[in-house]
């Protein structure tokens, strides 16, 4: 099993969610984050003073998937959140040893 983590623009969340549902993904976890990559923040002027802001707001979406579904899920996320501009985000895939559904206590693939 794998955990697919995506850090994308906040207003893409609905699109990502819909894409995942179309893909048959049954669950996801969402949280707030901020970050930077190639997108380096920008200069702001406020009350006559100038600032350089670095951290841009993002949302983090995490999805547990079967090994077999990884590439489809990644593709779905990338497609839904891609605009071709810097700041589009990052997706990464990491290994998971076990998953447990709390309600039933099931382990492994069945618990996803």
């Amino acid at each position: 099993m794998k955990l697919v983590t995506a850090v994308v623009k906040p207003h893409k969340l609905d699109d990502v969610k819909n894409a995942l549902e179309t893909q048959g993904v049954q669950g996801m976890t969402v949280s707030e984050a901020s970050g930077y990559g190639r997108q380096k923040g920008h200069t702001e002027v406020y009350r006559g003073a100038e600032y350089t802001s670095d951290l841009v707001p993002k949302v983090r979406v995490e999805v547990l998937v079967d090994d077999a579904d990884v590439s489809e899920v990644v593709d779905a996320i990338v497609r839904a959140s891609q605009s071709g501009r810097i700041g589009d985000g990052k997706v990464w895939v990491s290994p998971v040893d076990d998953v447990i559904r709390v309600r039933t206590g099931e382990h492994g693939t069945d618990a996803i």
Partner: protein
Amino acid sequence: MEVDNGTTAWLLSAASMVLLMLPGLALFYGGMNRARGILNMMMMSFGSLALVGVLWVLYGYSVAFGASQNGIIGDPTQFAGFKGVLAETAVTAGLPDTVFAGFQAGFAVITVALISGAIADRAKFSAWMVFVGAWATLVYFPVAHWVFAFQGFDDAAGAYTAGGWIGFDLATIDLAGGTAVHINAGAAALALALVLGRRKGFGAEPMRPNNLPLVMLGAGILFFGWFGFNVASTLGVGFNSGYIWINTFVATCAAMLGWLVVERLRDGKSTSLGAASGAIAGLVAITPGCGAVTPVGAIFIGLISGVVCAFAVGLKYKLKYDDSLDVVGIHLVGGLLGTILIAFFASDAAVYYGQNGLFYGGGGDLFFKQIVGAIAVMAYSFVIAFIIGFIIDKTMGFRISEEDELEGIDFTEHAENAYELTGRAGGSFTSSRPTTTSEVSS
């Protein structure tokens, strides 16, 4: 004429209370908005305060209350820059004209600000300011003349001898602005909602209020200021003041009850947004008739407006116009209700007007007067607001870019985010805006 200190004292308080309604409205609207646009929403109110306030002194007061030109408009030069108002002898019925001019300034400022609730999250601030100046000049100032101008007080007869065509000639009952304020702003709000179109996501995303405690506080402040608004509109102090105060109070209470009961029966739960909205609906509806009905009549007007407006705010989803914060559903609908219900509930026990409505044995002519006054203001305001909005849209553009709308108008139009609440921590980052900084220079 001599100044009456008691009257003047109350009007000074009331004028200040009316002005407090401006930040009250900004909170009410701002809290009801999504978080990304609360500051812009508040800025539309504050911007209208700033601009209309200055225009009022320059020529607005004169257009509204200068010598009536056939009931259509006041002489715009007579009091320009407040010349003439600043004379010690300018006192009417015990009240210095300067105090009256201040009291009425608040009406102008707030009426314009009311409109902004319909165009949340998507109007260029510069375009809004242009609209403010144009609509105040072309619509509010003249309409205030139509409804509120009573001139040439004849001390012997104890009556006025000239004035605006609605308030004076037609004698529509509208003490504090059911037509001039609420129908007027509500119709303009509808026009702008149509000109600007819907927010991205309207009807699909919930767009819930970002800060309901501020909505309730805003409603509470409006409630407070409204006593100045309504009660002092007799421009005097006395017996009438008392029951107008009571009517304003109890209609608000009844409207809240009405709205909360509708929600309970229809949706299963009464909401705080409903309580706040109900209070405003009641205040709007009692505004024109507060001096024309008994407290029991006020309870009915309140109840009816609370119930009707609770349904009216849903219309926008059916008819697919994005009246974002329900200016139409509450101010236009409530204003129409309040203006027309007078024809039914007016009672001569309310001696300020001393007229009877249909339920108290009165005739149909009052109904006619109320309808004509209401429709005239609604039509005029809608048409002119639409034209102004249309011209602004075709020239400078009224709406921000789609990208900016998604990014959030507070940041793109005002370079700000409303909240940076991450508290105790040393690092000043928040997840809702970037703040880590490399350098500052001034």
